[in-house]
């Protein structure tokens, strides 16, 4: 990396929530701008510096023909490309359209569907270009974002766990909501949020997407067996933020009958 690396933040189809996590790093942001040149970050400034970029953070899914081209250009201009959030890593909530006919969606949502140019699917960035790192979550976790940026600056491997939410849940000492009767996606979901939902007495919604070796069928079958959920509930649980992530897609489809 050059003396003061150039960081660009790009937005595709998304709600901006992940970019806002970067803005949420209030205390750290000043320090970050001291060591990094922020070359493009429309949430924070209108100024756009030309490439190439040392690191690009990409938020959002590829949902329009324009985005399909844009991501190729960004890849060419970026030494390291990190996709951030459920939209960029798995298509996001809008990937629900992959399970339906996009024409029905467009005419249901827009008054003038004829003006809408959209692809039939919402897809992850990695389906279009090579991605160097992925940060999961809807939205991403601020500490993970800082960890990746700092690790890259210091040329070390970032600490991004691939195991289950349960490990974080147990480390922080939360008593398991699942075993106490609330359906929880934690055992099949990747860690990184520090088990936020169970710590607030809720089941994990799976917003960090599939963990390294998810066994969705076993978890789902147990919930059905214990009358914690019906198959239709499981379809919904696997198809929320990461419906198009292969392991969740497969599990969700298997309960759709």
């Amino acid at each position, binding site marked *: 990396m050059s003396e003061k690396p150039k960081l660009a933040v790009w937005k595709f189809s998304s709600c901006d929530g992940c970019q806002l996590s970067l803005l949420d790093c209030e205390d750290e942001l000043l320090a970050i701008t001291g060591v990094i040149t922020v070359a493009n970050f429309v949430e924070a400034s209108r100024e756009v510096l030309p490439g190439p970029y040392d690191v690009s953070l990409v938020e959002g899914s590829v949902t329009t023909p324009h985005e399909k081209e844009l991501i190729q250009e960004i890849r060419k201009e970026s030494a390291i490309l990190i996709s951030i959030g459920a939209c960029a890593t798995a298509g996001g909530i809008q990937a629900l359209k992959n399970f339906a006919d996009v024409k029905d969606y467009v005419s249901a949502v827009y008054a003038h569907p004829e003006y809408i140019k959209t692809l039939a699917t919402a897809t992850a960035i990695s389906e279009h270009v090579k991605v160097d790192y992925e940060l999961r979550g809807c939205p991403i976790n601020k500490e993970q974002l800082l960890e990746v940026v700092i690790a890259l600056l210091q040329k070390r491997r970032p600490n991004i766990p691939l195991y289950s939410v349960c490990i974080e849940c*147990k480390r922080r000492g939360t008593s398991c909501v699942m075993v106490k009767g609330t359906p929880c996606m934690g055992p099949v979901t990747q860690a990184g949020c520090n088990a936020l939902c169970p710590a607030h007495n809720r089941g994990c919604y799976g917003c960090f997407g599939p963990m390294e070796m998810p066994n969705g069928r076993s978890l789902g079958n147990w919930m059905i067996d214990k009358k914690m959920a019906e198959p239709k509930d499981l379809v919904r649980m696997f198809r929320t933020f990461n419906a198009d992530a292969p392991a969740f897609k497969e599990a969700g489809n298997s309960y759709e009958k």
Partner: protein
Amino acid sequence: MKDAMPAVCIDRADFDSVIKALAGDGYNVVGPVLREGAIIYDEISGVSDLPEGWGDEQEAGTYRTVKRNDKALFGHNSGQQAWKKFLYPSRERLWSAQGDNAEFKIEPNAETPPKYAFVGVHACDLRAIEIQDIVFMNPETADPRYGKRREGAFIVAVNCAQSAKTCFCAAMGTGPRAESGFDLSLTEIIEANAHYFVATVGSARGETLMQKIKSRPATDADLQAAATRTENAQKQQVRSLDREGVKELLFSSYSDAHWDKIAERCLSCANCTMVCPTCFCSKTEDTTDLSGNHADRWRLWDSCFTVDFSYIHGGSIRKQVASRYRQWMTHKLASWIDQFGTSGCVGCGRCITWCPVGIDITEEAKVFREEKMDPRLRGDDEVVKGTKQ
């Protein structure tokens, strides 16, 4: 101790003074509390923090707190996490490093570890602490911070008067009565007109503490009442594990097809290892700040259920979930014996209750046992090919 102090009785009304005396001696007193529908261990300042009148119902993958029909203070069994979370915290800084181009300095974590008093340690968990002592206090692999916390800890054991459906300490020979390793042990007695504790002193520290506590000598009837309580607890145990030859059984089941069967259900979520009071595995993680002049090395609980755990150059050795469950079960019940001279399982039942899909180590052990009895079910390699789905 040469002359063991004879057992005494502490009235329920005077029990608060035990907690207060420990706090007065500078201990962070930890005991059971009711929180978010579970009985867990946390700091307590008096008897009113204890889960009076609450018990628990446990089954594989299920835990519920239930109102008891008495006012027992210790009417519960194993909670989700044992004392490990205090003696061996899930995340701890090992050292910090400070440096720039001129100088690089490493500073060990110098924070004074808290001095704990644990009130309500069940027999199985007491044995689990002793097992972790073998791991962390032997000269070869000593963890000095564990050692400091452990040496400072005051232990008030409570002999169980009931068992959960997931308990099998009797089969593992660890309980329900604590025989040694405590400073003070208690059995809670609740009768129509009386509520008191039969107390046995186990150390000089315990004896000093008891000098501050109002008590009366225990009669034969009191001792009998206490013995009956733990006998009842033992009789209630519905699970068991046949320890006889279990090491050979598991070692010879290495390529058994049943591991794959378990893996169909296992989530590799690691909950079993996280809640197990003897599991000790950890990983280290280095964090750095933005300036790059400061780094910390952290020790974190880890588990043999993660892919990364068996990562060596070129990839992970245990790629399949079957091999990870096999590692866990074989380590707990078999290779632990070779490694530390004792079983790694104390029969607390936590891995059964807190497995999100109720996988039960006692049931799985039985399957291997029954397969060995019936050669047609035996999973040597030829049979594996035929029976695998």
